[in-house]
């Protein structure tokens, strides 16, 4: 742990203009290192998803600076036109629901991004099978999502997020649709991924019971991001 995977400095996001101007994030600065699982916690409407989308190169910030690994990708403007390529090569996304492509089977869902990145089909399949074995779901490689349980689908979705060997995983409430036991399993799995794959994981969550499983907690207070160490009282944040 220690090497930066994502660094944000003075990040600002405003919506609207003039009297209708809304300041969502105003001068957020933080860093998440490789191997860290960080929870992003804030009340609804505080700007969690907006922050996640800015880090994920989906939503353009108003100003500030964003580094992904050693590469500066934003400094008051995108430094590349290919933000989609950055997402495809450096970021893994996990959503509330699994959001697998319903007309692709498990292995096709997992290999879609690597193959788009130019990884040969055979090699992409090998990577995918290793991931599916890691998540103990290799026997379902040729099933489609409608044939899997919720938990199995979520594991496939996590495998898909890892298939492009990302530097950062952005998880938007990945446990929202799961019961407590499964939620704990998923968060433990994310922690294991962060450690084993040496990636930074930022997880938006409303579930306070998951916070003690994380390495750090980021909160949005007064439109700024504040970092907290995990303590026994973390569940009370």
């Amino acid at each position, binding site marked *: 742990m220690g090497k930066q995977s994502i660094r944000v400095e003075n990040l600002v996001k405003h919506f609207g203009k003039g009297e209708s101007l809304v300041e969502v994030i105003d001068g957020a600065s933080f860093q998440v290192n490789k191997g860290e699982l960080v929870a992003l916690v804030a009340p609804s409407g505080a700007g969690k*998803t907006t922050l*996640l*989308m800015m880090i*994920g190169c*989906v*939503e353009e910030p108003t100003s500030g600076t964003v580094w992904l690994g050693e590469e500066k990708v934003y400094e008051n403007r995108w430094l590349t036109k290919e933000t*989609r*390529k*950055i*997402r*495809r*090569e450096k*970021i893994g*996304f996990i*959503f*509330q*629901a699994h*959001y697998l*492509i*319903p*007309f*692709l089977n498990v292995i*096709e869902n997992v*290999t*879609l*991004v690597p*193959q*788009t990145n130019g990884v040969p*089909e055979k090699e992409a399949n090998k990577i995918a099978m290793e991931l599916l074995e890691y998540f103990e779901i290799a026997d379902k490689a040729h099933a*489609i999502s409608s044939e899997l349980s919720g938990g199995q689908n979520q594991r496939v979705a996590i495998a*898909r997020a890892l298939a*492009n060997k990302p530097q950062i995983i952005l998880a*938007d409430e990945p446990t929202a649709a799961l019961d407590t036991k499964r939620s704990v399993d998923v968060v433990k799995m994310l922690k294991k991924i962060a450690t084993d794959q040496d990636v930074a994981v930022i997880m938006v969550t409303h579930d306070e019971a998951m916070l003690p499983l994380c390495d750090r907690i980021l909160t949005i207070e007064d439109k700024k991001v504040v970092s907290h160490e995990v303590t026994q009282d973390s569940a009370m944040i």
Partner: protein
Amino acid sequence: MINLAQKDVKHTLGKFLVTAMGVGMLLGIVLIMIGVYRGMMVDAEVLLDDINADLWVVQEGTLGPFAEASRIHEDLRNTLRVIDGIENAEALTFQNIQLPKKPKPVRVVAVGYDPLGTINPINPDHIIAGRALMKEHYEIVVTDTTGFTLGDTIHLVRNDYTVVGITHGSVSSGADPLVYVSLKDAQELQFSYSNNRIRSDRARGFKNTETLMVNTIVGRVKAGYDVNAVAREIERFKHKSVYTAAEQKSILTKNLVQRASKQIGMFTGILVIVSTIIIALIIYTMTLEKMKEISIMKLIGIPNGMIIKMIVQETLLLGFLAFLFGNLFSHLIYGKFPKRVVLEIPDAWMLFIVVIIASILASMVGVRKVIHADPAAAIGG
């Protein structure tokens, strides 16, 4: 590389095929409409080709005998026969009649000709049973679609006619079945009145001389003579309108069939436009159904080009399958139409090109939707 279109179609194969069948039926109707037009053109020429005359002499100032009514004296035939360049000439009549039959009468066009003459309007290749007329009275040759068989007796006006021959594929320019009777019988059918009418005419001092009229005199020109020159010669000295075979064909196809063909052409055009709109709507709906997946794909970094390729390939496949189903459908039903429908391969290829162009245009609505899809829509449920 994963082919998204192939995977998506395979996933919803049943729905995709049913949709293609639906559009295919519409395209099948387009093919049938074109076939009806082709059939009209063929029908218009059947009788002309069977008679195979070089010249058509009709009442002066008319486009007879098909496009306008024409009445000329039968004995003009004898005058024409002695004109330099004429090899032979015969009188013909054409009239619409209803043959009595149960459960309902059959509407036909009766061709009257001299069975002992030199020009026979019955194409021997069309006779499938019996023979052509051999007597001057009370024989009739009918087309198979009338439903009569050899030996049947048909009562017309005052007399009974015996069916002595059956033809196949003999139709008038209006696609009505043809029957053939002798010239004398035809004149009587066309120009004879009832006894009451004759008595009434006599009381008025009128004498019925119309039984000596015919609708046209057709002639063949001797080898080495210019058909047009002979036609203009007759026109100048006999005060009749004279048309060559080519002119008569032109009158039929341009004057009689052209308006109908324009109407069919408009219907066909509208159907093609409707098909394009329907394909566009289907693709739009199919794209809308996939908007969540498209947003996710854009979010995880799949390029627009790959998603657009999926939409365009699906649209082209839909168009191609619809085209195949359309051809199948049209070939299954075209024989059930009461009039001739001619399905030609060049027309099918033309429709194929139109369908492909229409599919590409239709896919644009889906492509536009893809380009404007917001990847952020995938986040936040």
